[in-house]
């Protein structure tokens, strides 16, 4: 168990900056997820912590030691790899004990620790099997056992579930959380899957193009995204975005207008453009407007395609020609996605009225993408303009 601290870590490959000025401060025993699209620098960040890659500049501390220039074996870390990376010519026992044998552990203690690790991941009685004789999930357990047998201070996991099938992935997700509770070790977990990040972590750090976008508990990332990228990346299906112009207490998009309280974002004036974001679940049918915290005036729309998911229905909305609340040019419109209860009486090509929960409308700066406000009415506004980017990273870290 140890805290992990990255200070100004930058990694450049020639002209390409894979990681740019990364600052992370992990509490002891925290489960933190690095999440982002391919090539965002999350794996590179993990490799610098592991010692497989040396950062171009910046320092890395594990516990109270600076480890920036130490080889992986002296860092007190263990790693689980995306491709599992078991040694195919060794049986399970040899795979798990490989690190211990290199350190010349006495046979007796080695047996004890291997047995214990195998018990934790429920692999008892399989120690003499070869990796090729095991299923994907079992191999993943061996890889985890190989990591925990060394009793590391920090676990590093590089997309460990990416190669498992969907059902197994969900199971292993739960098991990893259980394991974290049991071992109480700091875990850094890399994934491109936002669902894994949401469900497993104490805090999520969202990366894009080598830069940290936000580090915060999952629900904070979801409800108060620091910028447009986080808003679009976290949450499935993705947030609806529309370009809006401020016009006398109104947010005018091409298709509709929403009243808002201009005082929530003081620096904006009439005529300024903002990016407006609404999650599908913050749109309601006008009949159910009381479910919204602060419903907007009704907007007339027409349903396009329905996607019944079982527990909810995703409804694609399109404007109804010239009618209703200022629907504009059909060619230019942004589609709008709404989720409704599965028992809602709704069909395709139906004219309906919807309301937007104004307490859940996010405004982002057109240029920088930084969040300006979460909620466009005074009492519900939760974040101020300058709370963007790296500052948001301190949301939970301050506790330590």
């Amino acid at each position, binding site marked *: 168990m140890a805290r992990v601290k990255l200070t100004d870590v930058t990694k450049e490959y020639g002209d390409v900056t894979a990681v740019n000025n990364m600052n992370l401060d992990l509490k002891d025993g925290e489960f933190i997820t690095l999440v982002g699209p391919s090539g965002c620098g999350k794996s590179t960040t993990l490799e610098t912590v592991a010692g497989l890659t040396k950062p171009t500049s910046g320092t890395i501390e594990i516990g109270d030691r600076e480890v920036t220039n130490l080889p992986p074996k002296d860092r007190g870390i263990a790693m689980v790899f995306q491709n599992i*990376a078991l040694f195919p010519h060794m049986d399970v026992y040899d795979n798990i004990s490989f690190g211990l044998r290199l350190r010349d552990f006495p046979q007796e203690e080695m047996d004890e620790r291997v047995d214990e690790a195998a018990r934790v991941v429920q692999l008892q009685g399989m120690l003499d099997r070869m990796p090729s004789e095991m299923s994907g999930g079992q191999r993943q357990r061996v890889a985890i056992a190989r990591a925990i047998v060394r009793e590391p201070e920090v676990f590093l996991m590089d997309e460990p579930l990416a190669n498992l099938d969907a059902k197994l992935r969900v199971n292993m997700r739960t098991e990893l959380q259980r394991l974290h509770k049991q071992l109480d070790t700091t875990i850094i977990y890399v994934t491109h899957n936002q669902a894994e990040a949401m469900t497993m972590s104490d805090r999520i750090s969202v990366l894009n193009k080598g830069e940290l976008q936000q580090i915060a508990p999952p629900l904070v990332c979801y409800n108060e995204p620091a910028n447009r990228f986080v808003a679009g990346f976290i949450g499935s299906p993705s947030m609806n975005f529309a370009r809006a112009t401020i016009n006398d207490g109104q947010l005018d998009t091409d298709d509709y207008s929403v009243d808002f309280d201009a005082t929530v974002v003081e620096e904006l004036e009439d005529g300024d453009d903002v990016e407006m974001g609404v999650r599908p679940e913050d749109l309601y049918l006008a009949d159910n407007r009381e479910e919204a915290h602060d419903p907007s005036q009704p907007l007339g729309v027409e349903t396009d395609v329905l996607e019944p998911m079982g527990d909810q229905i995703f409804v694609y909305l399109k404007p109804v020609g010239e009618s209703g609340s200022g629907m504009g040019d059909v060619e230019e419109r942004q589609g709008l996605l709404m989720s409704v209860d599965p028992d809602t009486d709704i069909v395709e090509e139906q004219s309906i009225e919807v309301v937007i929960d104004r307490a859940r409308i996010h405004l982002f700066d057109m240029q920088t993408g930084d969040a300006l406000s979460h909620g466009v009415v005074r009492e519900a506004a939760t974040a101020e303009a300058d709370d963007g980017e790296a500052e948001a990273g301190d949301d939970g870290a301050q506790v330590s």
Partner: protein
Amino acid sequence: MSNPQDTVAGSQAVGGTETDDWRTRLVEFSKSDFVRSFPFWFVPFSIMGLGVYGGIGYNTLISLTDYEGFNEGPDYTNLDLGMYVQAVNDPWVWTTSKNTFVLLIVFTTITMLLGLFLAIMLDRGIRYREKIQTIYLLPMALSFVVTAQFWLWMYNVNNGLVNTVVGLFGLGPYNWIGDPQLVLGSVIFALIWQFSGYAMVVFLAGLQSIPDDQFEAAKVDGASVFKTYWRVIIPQLKSSSVSAAVVLMIFALKAFTFLFSMFGQYRVPKGTDILATLMVREAFKLQNWAYAAAIATILLLMALAVIAPYLHYQHKQGSL
């Protein structure tokens, strides 16, 4: 087309007369994969069967006779193992067997180790990998006749390059070819030069199929570079090693081409006389057909002994 016939034949068979049963079977047989694929496999199969296995069979038959010279054909009435007895009692057969064995072991071992070493070096990311790979593989592309001839020149006792080089260190000159103590070593060295590139390419392919995370996993577990290769990587090169070894060993057994090109005659220096050269000499210089055939059979058995572990390995892997 044939389906209705099938049904008819089938229903008649249910009717139960023996002729119908026989007809059904014939129809079934004519439509089986075996019959329908016959034109495709029979020709190559018979050519290979006749050329290779027929040749082996005929050779074995000759070795059981006392056939020699050109005057009359072999006498098949009196078959015995006389030639094999003669071979076992012939000290020359033992000498050449010993040379064959030394060539086989030393050449194969050193070539593999050198090839593995080169492959690891290249795999560790020396720049211009492709060019270097080509440079090492190039000797393989040269004809034996060419390499044998220029190694002969390089080994020349008076003005060969090898003696010039060792002369720089105050050694020699050595009679690399003339000295029976040295000649086998000289030949093996030349062969290693020609074949280590091949071994390297085989190992390099094996190394490159091992994913990076094997190296990373070993590194995180605390293995040094040497231990990573020794305990994690090289054990995974088993199938590359087996295929390289089999090719090299079989070549060592039939190194006749190289030796014949080098010395330009059937009688090669005693130090480097191997079973293959002895066999050709007995047959084509002395016309002892039956005796040469017996030596050929012994050579074949040795080659089979070399391949047997490979076949066993393949069988165990389920690919045979």
